[in-house]
C-alpha cells in the first residue's frame, strides 16, 4: 500500500545511469550545498538561501500519492510514527541549543554583528531601533534572495564544480572551525584545563568523521547526530550574532519567504526544482535530515551500480524519479546497502519533506506509481534549515525572555504543534509544503504572548503560591 501520503516525494527523477554517475557529483553538490548552508558567517546567506532555495529544502515537503485510498488509510496510522521521527531530532537540536545558551555565556554575549546586519540596535530611541532592525532584516532577506537566485543561475548553467566547492568549504568550516570555537567556549565555561594537542586530535577526528558521514557513507545514527550537531552550531551562531529585534523580524520574514518561494509559480525554489526535473537530475540532496536508510548504496562503485540501476530503472520507470531523488539523498548519506535495499528503494517512495525537487517530482509523477513494500520503513526528511530556524527561535526565547523557562517551554510546544499541523496538512493536500511558516508563526505568537502576558501572571501566582 502506498502509504506515502504523508510524505513525500523524493527528489527529482533521474535516470539510473546518470544517477549513478551523477550520484557522486550531485552528492557533492548537495553536500556542498548543505555545507554551504550551514555555513559560517561569511556565507550565512548561503544558508538561508539554501534553505529556501534549492537544496532539498527544508521547507518543502512533498508527498506522493500512489494509491489514494491506501494513502488515506495509512495517513494517520503511519503519520503518527513519522511525526515522532521528526519530533525527536527537532527536540534534540533544541535541547542542545538551549542547554548551550543556558550554560555557555559566550553565545549570549554581544560581540558584534554580522556584516549582513550592519545597523546596530543600541540606539537612543525605540523608533530608531525599529527602523534599524527593519533595515537589517531587509538586507538579510535580500542577501538570501540573491544567493538563492545565484544558486538557480549556477545550477541552470551547470556550474556544478562551483557549487560543490562552495559546499565543501562550508562544511569544512562548520565542522572544524565552529566546533573548535564551541569546544573552546565549553572548556572555558567549565574551567577545564586542556592542551592544544588533545584539542587538535579531538577536532580533527570530529571533523573528519563528520565529513565522511555527511558527504559519503556512515551509520545512520551517527549521520543524524552530526546533522543535528551542525544545525545546533549554526543556530548558535545566529543567536549570537543577530540582535534581538532583527532576529525576530528575520524569523518572521523568512517564514513568509518560505511560503512564497515554495508555493508561488515563479518562486526560485520552484524554478530550481523544475530545472532539475527537466534535466532529469537530482537536485542537491544535501542539507536534509533523513530518518531511515532506505537508500541505495555505494556511490563508490559507480559502474556496477549504474548497471544495476539501469536495469532496475527500466522496470520501475514510474518510480524512478521518486526513488532516484530519494536515492540521491540517500546516497550521500547512507551507504553499504545491498541489492535488497535497492529493490526496496525502487519500490518505495519515501516521505520527504523538504525538497523542492520532490515537489516537481510529485507533479511529474504519474498518479499510479508503485506502492511501497513496507510503509513502516519509509522514512521522513526534513531540511536542516528548518532545524536551524526552530532552534534559533527557541534559543533566542531562552536567551532573552524574562519569563525564561516558561517562554522556552511554550515556544517548544508551539513549534512541535506547528510541525504536527504541517505534517497533517501535507497528508491532506499531498503536495509540497513549506515547514517553516506554521511553526514559526506559532512560535513567535507564543513567545511574545508568554513573555508579556503569561509571565507576569505566573510570577504573581508563584509569589502568592496560588495554583491554577
Amino acid at each position, binding site marked *: 500500500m502506498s502509504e506515502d501520503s504523508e510524505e513525500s516525494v523524493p527528489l527529482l527523477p533521474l535516470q539510473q545511469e546518470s544517477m549513478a554517475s551523477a550520484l557522486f557529483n550531485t552528492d557533492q553538490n548537495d553536500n556542498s550545498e548543505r555545507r554551504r548552508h550551514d555555513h559560517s558567517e561569511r556565507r550565512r546567506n548561503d544558508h538561508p538561501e539554501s534553505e529556501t532555495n534549492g537544496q532539498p529544502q527544508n521547507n518543502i515537503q512533498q508527498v506522493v500519492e500512489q494509491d489514494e485510498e491506501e494513502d*488515506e*488509510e*495509512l*495517513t*494517520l*496510522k503511519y503519520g*503518527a*510514527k513519522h*511525526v*515522532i521521527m521528526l*519530533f525527536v531530532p527537532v527536540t534534540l537540536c533544541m535541547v542542545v541549543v538551549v542547554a548551550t545558551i543556558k550554560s555557555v555565556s559566550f553565545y549570549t554575549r554581544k560581540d558584534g554583528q554580522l556584516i549582513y546586519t550592519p545597523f546596530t540596535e543600541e540606539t537612543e530611541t525605540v523608533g530608531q531601533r525599529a527602523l534599524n532592525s527593519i533595515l537589517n532584516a531587509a538586507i538579510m532577506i535580500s542577501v538570501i534572495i540573491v544567493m538563492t537566485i545565484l544558486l538557480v543561475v549556477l545550477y541552470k548553467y551547470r556550474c556544478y564544480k562551483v557549487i560543490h566547492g562552495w559546499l565543501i568549504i562550508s562544511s569544512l568550516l562548520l565542522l572544524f572551525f565552529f566546533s573548535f570555537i564551541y569546544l573552546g567556549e565549553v572548556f572555558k565555561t567549565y574551567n577545564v584545563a586542556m592542551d592544544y594537542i588533545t584539542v587538535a586530535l579531538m577536532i580533527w577526528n570530529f571533523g573528519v568523521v563528520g565529513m565522511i558521514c555527511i558527504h559519503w557513507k556512515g551509520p545512520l545514527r551517527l549521520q543524524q547526530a552530526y546533522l543535528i550537531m551542525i544545525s545546533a552550531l549554526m543556530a548558535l551562531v545566529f543567536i549570537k550574532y543577530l540582535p534581538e529585534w532583527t532576529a525576530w523580524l528575520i524569523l518572521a520574514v523568512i517564514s513568509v519567504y518560505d511560503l512564497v518561494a515554495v508555493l508561488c509559480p515563479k518562486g526560485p525554489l520552484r524554478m530550481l526544482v523544475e530545472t532539475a526535473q527537466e534535466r532529469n537530475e537530482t537536485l542537491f540532496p544535501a542539507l536534509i535530515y533523513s530518518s531511515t536508510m532506505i537508500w541505495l548504496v555505494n556511490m563508490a562503485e559507480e559502474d556496477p551500480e549504474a548497471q544495476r540501476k539501469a536495469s532496475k530503472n527500466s522496470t520501475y520507470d514510474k518510480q524512478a524519479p521518486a526513488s532516484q531523488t530519494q536515492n540521491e539523498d540517500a546516497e550521500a548519506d547512507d551507504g553499504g546497502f545491498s541489492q535488497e535495499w535497492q529493490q526496496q528503494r525502487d519500490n518505495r517512495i519515501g516521505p520527504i519533506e523538504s525538497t523542492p525537487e520532490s515537489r516537481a517530482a510529485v507533479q511529474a509523477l504519474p498518479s499510479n506509481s508503485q506502492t511501497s513494500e513496507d510503509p513502516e520503513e519509509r522514512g521522513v526528511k526534513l531540511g536542516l534549515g528548518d532545524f536551524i530556524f526552530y532552534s534559533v527561535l527557541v534559543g533566542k526565547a531562552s536567551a532573552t525572555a524574562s*519569563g*525564561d*523557562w*516558561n517562554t522556552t*517551554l*511554550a515556544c517548544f*510546544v*508551539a513549534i*512541535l*504543534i506547528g510541525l*504536527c499541523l504541517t505534517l497533517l496538512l501535507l497528508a491532506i493536500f499531498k503536495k509540497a509544503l513549506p515547514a517553516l511558516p506554521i511553526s514559526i508563526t506559532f512560535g513567535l505568537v*507564543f513567545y511574545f*504572548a*508568554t513573555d*508579556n*502576558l*503569561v509571565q*507576569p*501572571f*505566573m510570577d*504573581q*501566582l*508563584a509569589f*502568592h*503560591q*496560588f*495554583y*491554577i
Partner: protein
Amino acid sequence: MTLAVFFGCTFIAFGPAFGLFLFTIARDPLRIIILIAGAFFWLVSLLLSSLIWFIAVKASDPQDERLQKGLLIFGVMFSVLLQEAFRFLYYKLLRKAIEGLVALSEDGCSPISIQQMAYVAGVGFGLMSGAFSMINLLADALGPGTVGIHGDSQLYFLTSAFMTMVLIFLHTFWGILFFHGCEHRRWWEIAAVVVMHLTVSGSSFCNPLYVGSLVPSYMLMAAAAAWAYLLSGGSAQNLRRFLLCLRSGASPQPGS
C-alpha cells in the same frame, strides 16, 4: 539552593508523571502527539486567561494591594474555568480524530480508544500545568539563596513540588472523568470536575498555611483516583486480584 533540593523537588513533582509517560505513553507515537496537543491546549487556555488578567490589571490601580490580590484571585478562577472549557474543546477535537481514525483504519476500529485519549489528554494538561508552575522555581533552586529569609515559609520549594505532583495527578483523573462525562452525557460529572478544580485552586489561597491546601488536594486526588478507576472499569475485585497476583506471582497480571 543546592543540587539536592533541585533534584528532590524535580522528582517529587515530575517523577510519577515521568513514570506514567515512560511506561504508558512513550511507546505509542499517536499518544505522544495527543499528549503534546493536550499540552498545547492547556497553554492556549493559560494564554487567554493571562490576557484577561493582564487587561484587568492594567486597567486598575497598581498601588492597591487588596485590589491586585482580588484581581489575581479572579484571574485564578477564570483560568480554571477556561482550562475546563479548553478540555471540552479538546474532547471535541479528539472525538473528530477518532472518527477519522476509524474511517481510515483497515478493520473499522480506531487504534486508540477515547478512554486512552482521555488519560493521555489529562496527562498532557497536567504536565504542562506542572511544568509552568514548577520550572522557574526549579531553575531558581539551583542558584544561590536562602528560602524564607524574609519571614516566608521555609518549605516553599517542597510544598510547591508536592502541590505540583498532586495537580498533575488531578489533571490526569479529571481528564478521564471529564471525557467520560462528555461521552455519556452525564453533565454532573463534568460539573463535578469543574467544582473539584475550583476547590483545589481555591484551597491554594490558604498558602502558606499548607495544611489548608495540600491536605484537601490530596484527599480530592484520592477521591478522583478512585472515581476514575471505577469509571475505567476497575472494581474492588480487580484491585484485589491485581494485588494478590503480585503477591503470589502465579497468575498473569490483569491488563490495565
